[in-house]
C-alpha cells in the first residue's frame, strides 16, 4: 500500500512539474473561466430583469446571488475540465515514449492515473483561493446551514473529481482519439451539467444525460450547501448519486486499465515508432 501512495505522490508531482508555468494552462485555468463567467453574467442579466424570471427562479431576482450561482458553476466546471486537460496531456506520454517506461515499472496503474488526476487538485489550489477570497468579501451571499457543510461541499467536489480524472486518464492513454474526447467534454459538458443555467430550465433528456457526469451532481451539492442553506438531509439524493458515480468511475477506470493493458500487450500498440 505504501508503494501505491508513493506512486500517487510522485505522479502528482511529476504532472505538476510538467504542466506548471505553461502559459496555456494559466490562460485556460484563470483567464478563460473569468472571461466566460463575465460573459455569462452579462448575457443572463438582462433576461433575468424581465418580471417573469424571478417567479420561476428566485435567484434571478438578486444580481449578487445570480453572480454567486454562476461563479460556483464556473469554479466546479473549471475544476472538472482541468482533469480533462490533465488526461489529455497524459495521453501524449504515449507519443513521447514515456508511457512505455511507466508500463515497464511495477507501479500500480491505478495509482498512476489517480496521482495524475490528483495533480489537478494542486494545480487548482489557487482557484479555490480566489473563490474563497471572493466568497469572504461577499460573505452575505453565502447561506450555509452549519460549518460542516463546507466540508461536505469540498468532499462532494474533490472526490468525484479525482474519480473522474482517473477514469479519463484510463480512457485517454489507450485511445488514439483523445482530441475528439477533449472537444466532446468541453462545451457539451457545461451545457448538460447546468453550469450556467439552473437544471430545471433544461429539457428532461439533457437532465438525464447530465446525470451521467459527476460535475452535475457536484454542482447541485455545492450550490445547495453554500448558497441555499441546504443541510445533509436536503442533499442526500445528489450525494448518494455522487457516491455511486464515484464508485462506478473508479471501477470503470480499473476495468479500462486492465483491458487496455491487455490489449496493448497483445497488439504492441504502446509502441509508436
Amino acid at each position, binding site marked *: 500500500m505504501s508503494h501505491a501512495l508513493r506512486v500517487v505522490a*510522485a505522479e502528482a508531482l*511529476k504532472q505538476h*512539474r510538467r504542466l506548471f508555468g505553461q502559459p496555456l494552462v494559466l490562460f485556460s485555468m484563470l483567464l478563460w473561466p473569468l472571461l466566460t463567467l463575465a460573459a455569462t453574467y452579462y448575457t443572463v442579466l438582462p433576461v433575468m430583469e424581465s418580471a417573469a424570471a424571478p417567479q420561476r427562479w428566485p435567484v434571478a431576482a438578486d444580481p449578487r446571488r445570480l453572480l454567486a450561482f454562476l461563479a460556483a458553476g464556473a469554479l466546479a466546471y473549471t475544476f472538472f475540465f482541468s482533469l480533462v486537460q490533465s488526461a489529455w496531456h497524459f495521453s501524449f506520454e504515449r507519443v513521447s515514449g*514515456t508511457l512505455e517506461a511507466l508500463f515497464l515499472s511495477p*507501479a500500480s496503474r491505478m495509482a498512476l492515473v489517480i496521482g495524475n488526476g490528483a495533480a489537478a487538485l494542486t494545480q487548482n489550489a489557487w482557484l479555490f483561493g480566489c473563490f474563497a477570497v471572493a466568497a469572504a468579501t461577499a460573505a452575505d451571499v453565502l447561506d450555509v446551514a452549519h460549518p460542516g457543510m463546507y466540508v461536505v461541499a469540498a468532499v462532494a467536489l474533490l472526490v468525484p473529481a479525482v474519480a473522474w480524472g482517473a477514469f479519463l486518464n484510463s480512457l485517454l492513454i489507450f485511445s488514439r482519439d483523445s482530441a475528439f474526447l477533449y472537444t466532446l467534454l468541453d462545451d457539451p459538458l457545461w451545457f448538460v451539467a447546468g453550469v450556467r443555467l439552473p437544471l430545471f430550465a433544461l429539457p428532461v433528456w439533457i437532465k438525464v444525460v447530465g446525470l451521467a457526469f459527476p460535475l452535475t451532481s457536484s454542482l447541485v451539492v455545492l450550490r445547495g450547501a453554500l448558497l441555499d442553506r441546504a443541510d445533509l438531509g436536503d442533499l442526500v439524493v445528489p450525494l448518494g448519486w455522487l457516491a455511486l458515480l464515484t464508485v462506478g468511475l473508479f471501477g470503470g477506470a480499473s476495468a479500462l486499465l486492465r483491458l487496455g493493458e491487455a490489449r496493448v500487450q497483445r497488439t*504492441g500498440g504502446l509502441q509508436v515508432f
Partner: protein
Amino acid sequence: MSTGIVTTDLRKTFPVRRWQGWRRRPAAAPVPAVDGLSLRIPPGQVTGLLGLNGAGKTTTIRILSTLLRPSGGTVSVDGLDVVEHAREVRRRINVISGGERMVYDRLTARENLWYFGQLYDVPRARLRVRIGELLDLVGLTEAARLPVERYSRGMRQRLVIARGLINDPAYLLLDEPTLGLDAPIAHQLRALIAQLAADGVGVLLTSHYLAEVEQLCRHVYLIARGSLVAQGSPAQLAGQTVRRHTVRLVLAEADPSVTAALRALAVRHDAELTVDVDDEGRPRFALRHPEDLVGAVVTAVVQQGGAVAGLTVTPPTLEDAILALADPAAVAR
C-alpha cells in the same frame, strides 16, 4: 528454481487487421514476429541477440519485459513466469533502448531519476544514494539540475541509461543502447556493461555494432524471422560459416583467353566463380575462396594480356557470417 531468464518455445504473432471492403478484418495468415525461440540469459554474463532488421529482437525484449504478452511458449525470470508474476518480474528487470526516449523533457535529470525510483519502490535512503551514484556514473552530475529539454542527444541517452539502472535490476535488457552515441561514450557504456555483468547482472544485448557484440558477449543467439538459426560464442558463430575472401575484378574489355584462365584458376583452387557484366557492359568476375586469391588472379590476367579496370578484395567478417546464417539468399546475390 532455475536462475536466469529462460524462454521456451516462445511465440508472438501480432494480430493484423486489413481493410476488406468496408470492414477491417483479421488477416488470413499473420506472420509470426517471434517463432519458437528458446533462449537462456544467465546471470553474470552478457548474452547477445543478433539478427537483421525485423528479425524479432525488439519483440523478444518487449516480451521478456512484460510489455508484450507471448502468443505461445513461456518465459520465466528466476523461475517466475512473466505473465503470471508480471509485477515481481518488473521489479527485477529493466530495459534500456537506444533513441533517448523514456525520460521527461521538462524534468531535470535528478527529478526523472527520483520519479522512476518511486515507481520502482526503491527504499528512500537507498534512492538518495543511488541517484547520486548514477548521475556520477553517466557523467551528468553537473547537469543534474537542468531540465532535460536542454540536454544534447548524448546526454539524454546517458540519462536513459541511468533510468534503466535505478532499480538495481538483476537482469538488464539492452536494445541497441549505443544507438546515436559518439565513440567515447559508447566505449564507456561498453565498459559499464562489462562491469555490470562482472557484478552478477544478467545482460541481454542487441546491437548492430558487431565489434560491440564480439567484445562483450560470451554467448550469442542469432535469429532470423523470429527463429533461432545459430548460437555459440562469437568466435564459434563466425566459424560456423565458411569465411571467404571475395575478389571482384572488372576487365576493361572482354577477352576469352582471360576468362578461360580465370575459370581454370577457380577449378584449380576449388573456388566459387561468378561471371557477369557491369553497368558499362564490361566483364566482371567475383571469386570467393577461404584464402585471398588476389595475387593469383592478377597474375593470370596479366599473363593473358588482359587490362584490369577495377579490383576489390573483401576480407571475411563476423558480419558476413551473420548475413550468411541469417539470410542465405542475400549472400548468394
